């Protein structure tokens, strides 16, 4: 299902009529579903968390048809299409088991963060 609202501000915000999710950038970058990040046959993740900038953040984003978004990341990676259903599944997963402590620490990093809260 397409979220009612979708935007990036410190984290990716997904707003549905009856629920809302926040996805930290690092977790989102790590779960990129593209063929460079995931082996298409085995489904195994090909990127290591050590290789991803903990302060990774989106610099651009486009809708893909009716079903997802394409994110251009600060590390120049831009081949991933994230279907809305996939984003929601990742978000639900994160609410059950937070991605890890280090991404919690870092998801407020990055030049887009403002400290008015």
């Amino acid at each position, binding site marked *: 299902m397409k979220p009612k*609202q*979708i*935007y990036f*501000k410190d984290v990716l915000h997904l707003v549905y009529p009856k629920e*809302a999710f926040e996805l930290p950038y690092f977790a989102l970058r790590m779960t990129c579903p593209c063929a460079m990040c995931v082996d298409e046959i085995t489904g195994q993740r090909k990127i290591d968390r050590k290789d991803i900038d903990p302060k990774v953040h989106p610099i651009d*984003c486009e809708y893909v*048809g*009716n079903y997802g978004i394409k994110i251009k990341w600060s590390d120049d990676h831009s081949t991933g299409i994230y279907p809305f259903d996939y984003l929601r599944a990742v978000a639900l997963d994160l609410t059950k088991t937070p991605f890890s402590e280090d991404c919690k620490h870092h998801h407020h990093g990055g030049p887009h963060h403002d400290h008015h*809260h």
Partner: protein
Amino acid sequence: MQSLEKSLEQLLAKIPYAGKENLLEVDYIQKLEIDRKVVKITLRLEKKPEDSARIEQAVRESFMALPEVENVFFLYTKPKKTGLESDPGRIVPKKVSLLANFDKVILIGSGKGGVGKSTFSVNLALALKKLGRSVALFDADIYGPSLPMMMGLKSAKPTMTANKMNPLSRYGVEFISIGNLVEEKEAVAWRGPMVHQAVQQLLRDTNFSGGDYMLIDLPPGTGDVQISLAQLTEATGVVVVSTPQDVALIDARRAMAMFEKVNVPILGMVENMAYFSCPHCGKPIEIFGQGGAKKESEEQQIPFLGALPLDPDARIGADLGKPVVLEKPESVIAQAFFSIARELEKLVD
């Protein structure tokens, strides 16, 4: 502990707007400022003052329930892109879909080939046209383009204006097909990425005038072209054409599963070649069995848009580039097309 702003946003998300959506979703909140225990909220000015009053009351009650809030002030502004939407730290996904100058983009798909999908697309386009709509056609069947023949412009080549192609036009319907650009045998050897590029270029570089409907005649099955179109356009939905035969239905089911995956709504099913009217006694003869697509659509709970007979006139019309809807508008099959067009209009309006 979460910030007060966050708590207030969550409260706003619980307040309904016009019954269905909540205040956060409708770009209603233009600005939200917090000065110690005072909240200043800028709202979009509503057309009806009683609506504003009702929302004001709901927001006040909900905010004042928080111990951190002592008072709430309301300001109003005319709707424009300010506040949350233009927040400099916020990235909103861009819309880059092609064919945006059409009100509705309808895909015409089928599970397998030979079910009469292109004949259907052409006649549906002309039926919608006769109902007063502006319609264009796009032949996405890269491997076996048949629109040029069916529209009676088989050897026509599109002209160019400033690096863009002008679509061909016949019977008041603009259309473009790869069949008008390359020789018949050339296109069939393309691989996936080339097909995607060809579709993208055709969509992007054709000067369609735009209008009410763009009908896209897909190749059969669930391949590269379908996925490309699902990525490049914001399709209103897909109409699945099937014959009553079981095989065609199994494939149609597979096609529908794929469209669900890419969030293209299935508008309905059409049963083509549903029966043959005996030219001698006029009785319908059900060559491929009876009502398969109708039964299937009931099972899948998707609308059944109508059944079309197997009619030699439709086939002859297609071969000669004289669509049956125009040539014999009073015939049973043409009337069935008009009825399907009207059903479709009800569904997408």
